């Protein structure tokens, strides 16, 4: 039992570190987004290009796709090292992590030629268009429809919670092509050009005040049949491949943790409060539980094993943990805790800001409840929920 790299891992880490320190600045709070959105996107594109040319983009992809042909463990190591620098990676996470691998898995040779390299080089940004206003946890119940018209499909409907839609060039789009079969069987996946006529992107004004996500409206959008991924009606299977890739993305800490609230309590003179100390112990145990469980996953990866659905626990722990810490920090500040103005609020208002983010974290990428169902059904083997729509056609249910 140790926390050391194997000699091969250490060698790769050193190589990654050398490349990173040559090309990026060490992490400085606030520096990355100081130039605003447009500048951030330009920087992200530039960094993606440097990475791809250096052989560090998409480490697990095969070499013929422009990847490194490396291991998942190398990908994890790269992620750990890249996180120590001011690396603008966000805009490419979904495209290269989820969308383009789906194109590689189900697309034609022409698709691969046309899309993969440009995405890898940072020229094209991709988004994922699955969720809808009436289809969140039950995404297979989506309503956006595609109707065949000659060699084309005509798309009408609305997607929601699409990250990066406003700066994306392409998207993978899951739509209903047959309402007269049960919901999972009537879906089809397409590649969609986000810049074409009939695609309208509107930012969502989130409860947190910001607008990181979008609604996307499709009005008589035409997609050539040649841009279909997989057979008509096979869309759900294609989507599962996309979502499987989501699980391999290893998330970092989303906000203040036990250390930040302990530092705050010390500065505020409340560290000796017994009720606070009790909670602090619980937070430390949860944070360690999260971190050390990732170490166990990494150990499995390092041995060439594939992590399973048990990874769902990380997000359950993290999102609730963050919400609880922020809530306590605000209450510790008493009436003053309501202030979100950075000039006045303690700790640059990190607790107040994350307090308003936390509810979203408990929902995005699988709600607490869905993740618990996943653990119960796929790890513990408990029976599936009753699905009253299982044998019925989509049309009958809607």
């Amino acid at each position, binding site marked *: *039992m140790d926390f050391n790299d194997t000699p091969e891992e250490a060698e790769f880490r050193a190589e990654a570190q050398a490349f990173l320190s040559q090309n990026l600045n060490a992490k400085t709070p606030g520096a990355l987004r100081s130039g605003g959105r447009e500048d951030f996107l330009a920087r992200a594109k530039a960094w993606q290009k440097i990475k791809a040319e250096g052989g560090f983009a998409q480490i697990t992809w095969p070499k013929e796709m422009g990847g490194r042909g490396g291991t998942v463990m190398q990908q994890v190591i790269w992620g750990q090292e890249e996180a120590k620098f001011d690396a603008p990676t966000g805009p490419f996470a979904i495209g290269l992590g989820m969308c383009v691998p789906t194109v590689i898995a189900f697309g034609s040779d022409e698709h691969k030629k046309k899309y993969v390299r440009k995405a890898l080089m940072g020229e094209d940004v991709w988004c994922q268009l699955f969720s809808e206003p009436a289809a969140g946890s039950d995404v297979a119940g989506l309503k956006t429809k595609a109707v065949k018209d000659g060699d084309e499909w005509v798309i009408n409907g609305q997607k929601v919670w699409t990250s990066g839609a406003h700066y994306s060039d392409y998207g993978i789009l899951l739509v209903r092509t047959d309402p007269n079969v049960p919901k999972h069987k009537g879906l089809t996946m397409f590649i969609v050009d986000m810049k074409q006529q009939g695609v309208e992107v509107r930012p969502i004004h989130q409860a947190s005040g910001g607008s990181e996500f979008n609604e996307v409206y499709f009005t008589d959008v035409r997609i050539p049949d040649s841009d279909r991924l997989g057979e008509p009606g096979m869309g759900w299977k294609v989507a599962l491949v996309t979502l499987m890739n989501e699980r391999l993305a290893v998330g970092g800490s989303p906000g203040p943790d036990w250390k930040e609230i302990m530092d705050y309590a010390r500065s505020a003179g409340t560290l000796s409060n017994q009720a606070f100390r009790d909670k602090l*112990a619980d937070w*430390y145990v949860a944070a360690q539980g999260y971190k050390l469980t990732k170490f166990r996953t990494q150990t499995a990866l390092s041995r060439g094993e594939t992590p399973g659905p048990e990874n769902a626990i990380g997000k359950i722990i993290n999102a609730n943990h963050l919400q609880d810490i922020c809530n306590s920090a605000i209450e510790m500040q008493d009436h003053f805790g309501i202030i979100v103005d950075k000039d006045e609020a303690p700790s640059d208002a990190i607790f107040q800001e994350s307090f308003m983010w936390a509810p979203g974290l408990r929902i995005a990428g699988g709600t607490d409840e869905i993740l618990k169902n996943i653990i119960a059904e796929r790890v513990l083997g408990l029976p599936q*929920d009753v699905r009253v729509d299982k044998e019925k056609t989509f049309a009958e249910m809607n």
Partner: protein
Amino acid sequence: MNFDFSDDQKFLRDEARKFLEAQCTMAQVREVLDDDSKSHNDGVWKKIVEMGWLGAAIPEEYGGLGLGMLELCVIAEELGRTLAPVPFGSSAYFFAEALKLAGSEEQKLALLPKVADGSVIGCIAVSEGPGETAAGNIATRLKDGSITGKKIPVTDGDIATHAIVLVKDGSSASLVIVDLNHSGVTRKSIKTLEPTRSHAVISFDGATADLLGEAGNGMPLLDQINDRAAVLLAFEQLGGASRCLEMANAYAKERVAFGRAIGGNQAIKHKLADMYVKNEVARSNAYYGAWALSSDAAELPEAAAAARVAASEAFWYASKENIQTHGGMGFTWEVDCHLFYRRAKLLAVQAGSPAVWKEKLVSALEAKND
């Protein structure tokens, strides 16, 4: 990154599990539960002694197998799964570890080989009354090499041959070793919530005592002993908590209500998912404790405390919600759920309650991040 047990250690775990599933069944646990005259299951104990597990972490020069702390952690988890009704923890986690930590060469040579071969059963006697034991509230005192006072409760105190006793020594505290079969020691069994592990009241009246470690250093030494034992107790708790989840899971799949298995209901599914999450948090923290213990890391105090807090919470939650999942059946004497509920509480308060360990944890973090 190699944050896991080795193949050899996993082999030991598998062998221990097979052995205990065959040799330490719930029927054997119940022999102790249902018979007030039984302090432990002697048949099970003799077989465990034969396996040499008591000496797993005792160096070969003191008669042990000289394997290591990670091996003892693996064994502890398996003993926890089967609710082994034997004084293993008292002898191996507390008594032997205390000797390894602070014993003189003479004490180690005299006692460790006998712990390893089972002819000495050790225990630790700290508590004298309700609440946390501190230097200021110990009444048992050491004077001219002998001790006088009363310790209650002492886990496995009625079957142990030797005890490490916390005593008042002048203005501070010391730890001493007492041979419980010598004159000046009277013992009486006492009923507890956990009848499958025996407990005693031990009265000392001028009993001969041998100092363990430096005079007056009792409290810091006790902290060190408890840090080491805490990791091992956490593995026992983890074993028990895992078993509770397995029991609840099996029952949820089999029990039918309203026309289907109750495990199809989200109220049950989410309860079991919560159990799983707590158990995994406990497992990861216990592994870190094991690493700190086996590598003599400076992080041991916070690692041990976190392991203990996480494991106490996991076993408590799993044991109470296992009963709940079983419904009325879970509240019967015949169904095993209550045995885990009882063991969970013993292991949570032995060597300090969760509140005590939370405070130790925060103090350690405070000292580090000053």
